[in-house]
């Protein structure tokens, strides 16, 4: 039951993704990619990940605001024609290569419904589930993993957010620092 529902949601996401890439208006493309994100949120809910569902839905709203900020006020129609045939052929070859890699790597995965941790001896997840509450005190095991067992990852992630803020500040401040030589300012 869950599997067929998930398949339905994923097919919806695939259709939305195709619409997002091959529509002519940027604003509709942005809204279609929002549909991909929200269907992902529903899928997480079905997969037993309510934390992820909340995070995904909130992040998706903020990303939509960001993307609409990029497209609004700009001419909404696309000016570019279809891609050249040579480029499409090259892309198709790349896709075949990626798909072959996927098929090879899928051999190491169990069928859907059996988590990876059940097939591998001494997987860390088993330890996290069995002793998580006792060692971290957090009843939500995801938070326990995120902020206690694997807090290093969270530290790195905080660094990434900080870098994004810095990058945004540098890219978007109104006046650039005085720089010698050729600057980008006179190009507009």
């Amino acid at each position, binding site marked *: 039951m869950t599997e067929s529902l998930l398949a339905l949601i994923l097919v919806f996401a695939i259709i939305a993704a195709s619409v997002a890439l091959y529509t002519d208006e940027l604003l509709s493309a942005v809204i279609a990619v929002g549909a991909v994100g929200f269907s992902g949120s529903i899928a997480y809910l079905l997969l037993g990940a309510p934390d992820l569902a909340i995070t995904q839905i909130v992040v998706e709203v903020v990303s939509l605001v960001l993307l609409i900020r990029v497209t609004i006020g700009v001419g909404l129609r696309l000016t570019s024609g279809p891609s050249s045939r040579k480029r499409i052929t090259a892309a198709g070859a790349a896709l075949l290569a990626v798909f072959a890699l996927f098929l090879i790597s899928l051999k190491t995965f169990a069928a859907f419904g059996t988590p990876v941790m059940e097939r591998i001896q001494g997987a860390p997840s088993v330890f996290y589930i069995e002793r998580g509450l006792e060692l971290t*005190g957090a009843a939500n095991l995801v938070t326990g993993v995120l902020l206690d067992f694997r807090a290093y990852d969270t530290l790195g992630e905080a660094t990434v957010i900080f870098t994004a*803020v810095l990058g945004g500040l540098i890219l978007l401040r109104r006046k650039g620092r005085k720089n010698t030589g050729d600057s980008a300012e006179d190009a507009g």
Partner: protein
Amino acid sequence: MKNRSLITVTVSRWVSPFIFIYGLHLILYGHITPGGGFPGGVVLASSFILALLARGREAALQRLPYPLAKRLDATGAIIFLLTALAGLAVSGIFFENFLLEIIPGTPMRLISSGTVLVNNAAIGIKVCASVFLIMLFLSVLRVGEDEQIRTIEKEEG
């Protein structure tokens, strides 16, 4: 941008405190119910972003001034790092949950997880300030407008 819709302004003014409280709930109860520092932080930020979009930059900056946002950003990171270093100082392991031994609390209650709660709060503050700052920077540069004006002038002239 001056003639904002009365409905938008009023509704945003009423709704954003509730969004803020929901964000606080997600952060504080993140270790026992679904939620946590990341979604809580983004929800907190979105209450400010709502003010930014509906009532303009001045209204948003009135509620969360730019210097305060910058300081909150740094504060969250420093609290997170300090709890990690405190764990190193107390028990010799970076990110050790040292508070759990001092205050065990009862499982499935608010005070139950030692440093996880502190870290959650730190991450929440940091993410909130960061997302708000990014939106603020994006709202400063008005790219589309002058470009549009230029094309309109070209067409008319």
